[in-house]
């Protein structure tokens, strides 16, 4: 009896394994490293939904990219580096581009992907100095970097203080990880330049525990608070700031700390909270209409479809759009629809998203135009400030898109990337 059961079991599993076939090579593979579980899931889910919906829409509306269907296998990382490595190794064969959605995993993949010849696109996160295409051939972080972000936030504060912030106190509340530490050096340089005092307040993973941080803020009374947070840390910070009655319009988050999930839990208390952004909120763009028509109305929305038009969902659309556009450009350059990972990189480097091209893609006025070049993988460096309206429950753009302090940022990028090039013995390209 036992043996019979065992035999049935073995036969069944053999059939199951043999029916597992490798995906067809002709399609274009855009593997996704997502986190729909864990402490960062509140932000990971809407972003991943944006990606999936956009890919599905392209497949349904245009029949893929130049006739090649997009494959987007998901791999759940839970924001863990070790799992991210496993996901990368599993999917790297014939993969066009990886979007790790985690600065930790990005750092992990930079040397690996460079050795394997796979493009990594870390949209507005990851290693800032990867903006220097001369050193980082396979890594892209357009349209804007953390160092741009830090200087744009300071520029906004400067403007609100009539250009003089000498002696003012600015606190940085940051996720105590590579991600959160990114802006520190820029802010230190800027604090010397503008004469403000910088207060550094780390928050440990996952970010639930911030009592001590906000107690310090209450005592020291900084004039402005900047935040580099992600996941549950954002919600807790906004709530804590509201509960100590910190003036919310003096509290500015990076673009990863400015989604609906982050402010809704604080209710009316979050009114006036600001964050940077490099894409517009809302669901009235052409691309949203197409997604509604080709994906949502057919009942094929990713997840439960409830994040449609939110900040991070829209950012997912933007990221997916750039990745798809890179494939389109690569197909044009190489004159074939069946592009290889190396051809894809050429496409990514030649991406030119002008206002006109964005309109064609259904992204009119959605984000500032940018283009990649051999030297510059960091995009335009433009970001705007948006403000939360707790009564209407929506984000409003309150400034134009603006540049950071490029003197400071470019110098730091050059320093850091040349240090990396020396460590890894990389010869500069594009000469």
């Amino acid at each position, binding site marked *: 009896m036992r043996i019979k059961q065992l035999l049935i079991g073995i036969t069944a599993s053999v059939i199951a394994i043999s029916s597992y076939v490798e995906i067809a090579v002709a399609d274009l593979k855009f593997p996704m490293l*997502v986190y*729909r579980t864990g402490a960062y899931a509140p932000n990971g889910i809407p972003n991943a939904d944006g990606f999936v919906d956009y890919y599905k829409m392209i497949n349904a509306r245009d029949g893929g990219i130049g006739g090649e269907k997009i494959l987007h296998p998901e791999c759940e990382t839970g924001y863990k*580096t070790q799992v991210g490595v496993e996901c990368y190794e599993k999917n790297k064969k014939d993969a066009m581009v990886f979007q790790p959605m985690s600065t930790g995993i990005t750092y992990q993949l930079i040397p690996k992907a*460079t050795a394997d010849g796979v493009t990594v696109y870390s949209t507005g996160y990851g290693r800032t100095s990867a903006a220097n295409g001369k050193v980082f051939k396979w890594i892209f972080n357009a349209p804007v970097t953390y160092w741009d972000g830090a200087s744009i936030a300071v520029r906004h504060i400067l403007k609100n203080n009539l250009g003089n912030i000498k002696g003012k106190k600015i606190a940085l509340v940051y996720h*105590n990880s590579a991600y959160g530490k990114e802006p520190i050096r820029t802010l230190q340089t800027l604090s010397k330049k503008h004469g403000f005092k910088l207060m550094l307040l780390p928050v440990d*993973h996952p970010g639930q525990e911030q009592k001590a941080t906000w107690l310090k803020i209450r005592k020291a009374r900084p004039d402005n608070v900047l935040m580099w947070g992600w996941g549950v840390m954002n919600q807790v910070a906004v709530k804590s700031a509201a509960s100590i009655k910190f003036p919310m319009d003096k509290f500015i988050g990076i673009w990863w700390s400015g989604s609906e999930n982050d402010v809704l839990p604080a209710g009316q208390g979050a009114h006036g909270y600001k964050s940077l952004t490099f894409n517009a909120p809302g669901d009235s763009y052409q691309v949203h209409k197409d997604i509604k028509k080709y994906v949502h109305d057919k009942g094929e929305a990713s997840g439960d479809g409830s994040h449609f038009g939110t900040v991070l969902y829209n950012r997912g659309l933007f990221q997916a759009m750039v990745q798809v556009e890179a494939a389109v450009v690569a197909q044009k350059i190489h004159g074939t629809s069946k592009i290889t990972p190396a051809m894809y990189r050429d496409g990514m480097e030649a991406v030119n998203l002008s206002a006109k091209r964005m309109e064609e893609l259904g992204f009119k006025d959605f984000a500032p135009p940018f283009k990649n070049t051999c030297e510059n993988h960091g995009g335009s460096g433009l970001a705007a400030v948006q403000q939360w309206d707790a009564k209407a429950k929506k984000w409003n753009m309150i400034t134009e898109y603006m540049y950071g302090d490029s003197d400071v940022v470019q110098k730091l990028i050059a320093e*850091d990337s040349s240090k990396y090039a020396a460590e890894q013995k990389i010869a500069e390209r594009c000469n």
Partner: protein
Amino acid sequence: MLYKETGQYKSTYKSDHAIFPLIQDKIAFSTLMFIAFLIIPFVINSYWEKAILVPFLIFSLAAIGLNILTGYCGQVSLGTGGFMAVGAFSTYKIMTYFPDLNIMIIILISGLITAAVGILFGLPSLRIKGFYLAVATLASQFFLVWLFNKVPWFYNYSDTGQITVSERLMFGVPVTGATAPPYATYLFCLILVVLLGFAAKNLIRSKMGRSWMAIRDMDIAAEIIGVPPLKTKLSAFAISSFYIGVAGALYFAVFLGAIEVTESFDIMTISFPVLFMIIIGGLGSMLGSFLGAAFIVTLPIGLKFIMVDLVGLSAVTAKHFEITIWGLLMIIFLIVEPHGLARLWSIAKEKLRRWPFPY
């Protein structure tokens, strides 16, 4: 019948003391070594290397280390992540100070540094035991991780607090860095694991190992018959930390290549999983350390493979199932087989001995 020891006579003390006294065990072990050293290196690809084999070897080493302390000497420790971080950061600092030093030597020195730190944090074990010691070692976990994040000297003042390995060669082949071929990193870890594994096995059979077990079984009785608790407990802490430190060094230099201390050496990513490894594998068993490491490293990957690639569930549903199954298995294991996988193996051997005539 298959696994009988009848007829295998021992005529010398030496053969009676052999690690594998039975011919069947010898054959099985040699086959395993043959496959590990002469077949796997030729067929390994980067997925098997990075996702399964190298983490398995590294966590086996960490599990051996913790098993020495917890399984053999009876001192519960939750500080594994912190000690692995010591190994990793020692490797990084030595690598940057002595760029020409051989990587094998660097890793062994890192083990020694971790051993010294282990002795320091083992001192409270002379006064407290059981749960209280577990809490004290938990403090070492948090303290060490905090230290490596707080003091910029440890990460050479890099902006992000990340430490990154540079390329190091072994016989002309890179074993660290992104260009290291899969077989090289695998063999590098394998050699260390086999050598250190044999050393641990023999240590356990020596006077030192016996005094560890005496302390574990009843420390007061052990002291009365002349086992010095100070020396014994601290030696267990030192040797255990040496193994864990080497594991941490490999985890950083060979496996991940770039590490951020708060994320990579977190209590949930290292300390608890390694403790589960020795509990599931079998406390006080060398084989158990390996079985436990294999189980914990491959279970999530195996479950993911079955659920996502074979059954076709979405990645997130599979993850939720995985978390549930994980918890369930843990409870079932503790109820059904509290002595772990190693005990299952000895039951299997017993059955094989009697097969095909069960009674």
